[in-house]
């Protein structure tokens, strides 16, 4: 049993406890003055959005390492992170409109933050499609797509500061008052622990798949 396998139940257990307590922790936060109850989406929406960007960057780094060194582990890490980025992107792109419907009066607006997030999500979707249907050699092509997708991350992050947008600016999180910062950090920690568990699980799947391919090659020889 590897260290990663031993860590999975521990990390999942910690994140389940933290997620279970999250509604009670969030309930201690005061209502935001202009948005009221709907602002509570923030406590899950922003951690997932931050981790979407972090996993996107890490996928780009792992893809670059794979392009340079062609190691199995860097490829496994890249594909794992790409899939998690896609899942987080899907969650953010569903949660965001639910918040926007109340706060802005529309489900969607083609403003820079939302549009760039959608484009980034589609790029990581393309990465996964390439891996699934690209055939032999698609790892290299997908790694290039991974690097390209990660390049979008700074644009997604700073889009709210660079262009005039409806979306709240990046200054919102650092300027949170203490009663809101505590629940936010709690949810952020829960999502970080859960994401580490997800990466380990997904990497294990990818390494097993690679071992299976090698075993089939040996069997055919």
């Amino acid at each position, binding site marked *: 049993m590897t260290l990663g396998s031993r860590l999975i139940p521990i990390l999942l257990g910690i994140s389940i406890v933290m997620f279970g307590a999250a509604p009670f922790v969030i309930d201690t936060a005061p209502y935001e003055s202009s948005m009221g109850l709907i602002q509570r989406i923030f406590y899950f929406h922003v951690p997932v959005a931050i981790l979407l960007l972090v996993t996107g960057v890490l996928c780009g780094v792992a893809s670059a390492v794979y392009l340079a060194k062609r190691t199995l582990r860097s490829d496994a890490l890249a594909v794992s992170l790409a899939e998690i980025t896609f899942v987080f992107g*899907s969650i953010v792109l569903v949660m965001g409109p639910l918040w926007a419907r109340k706060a802005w009066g529309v489900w969607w607006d083609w403003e820079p933050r939302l549009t760039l997030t959608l484009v980034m999500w589609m790029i990581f979707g393309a990465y996964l499609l390439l891996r699934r249907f690209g055939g032999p050699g698609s790892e290299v092509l997908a790694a290039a797509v991974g690097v390209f997708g990660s390049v979008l991350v700074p644009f997604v992050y700073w889009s709210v500061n660079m262009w005039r947008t409806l979306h709240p600016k990046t200054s919102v999180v650092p300027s949170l008052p203490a009663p809101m910062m505590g629940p936010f950090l709690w949810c952020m920690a829960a999502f970080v622990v859960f994401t580490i568990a997800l990466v380990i699980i997904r990497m294990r799947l990818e390494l097993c798949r690679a071992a299976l391919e090698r075993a089939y090659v040996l069997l055919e020889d």
Partner: protein
Amino acid sequence: MRRVWRAVRTGMVTAGLAGFGLVASLAAQAETEFRPIEPGDLMTEQLPATPLVFAAYAVVWVALLLYILVLWRRIGRIERELADVTSRLESRGR
């Protein structure tokens, strides 16, 4: 007895039709008259936030739970297949 039952039934049908007519007439009034808001009128209509917040949290929970389950099933299938291929390799002495 049959007469009483018929009277009750007729009464129920009449009341139902009257109620339907009343609702229909109110609806008809609402649909045929649009009144622009006056400067002094207070707009109280608002979209409730609770269903949206619940939906948002449900999306996260359901999506992550489904993803974990899918991963678990994929790992289980591949590990079973790997064990099968490995045993076939071992039986061939490799």
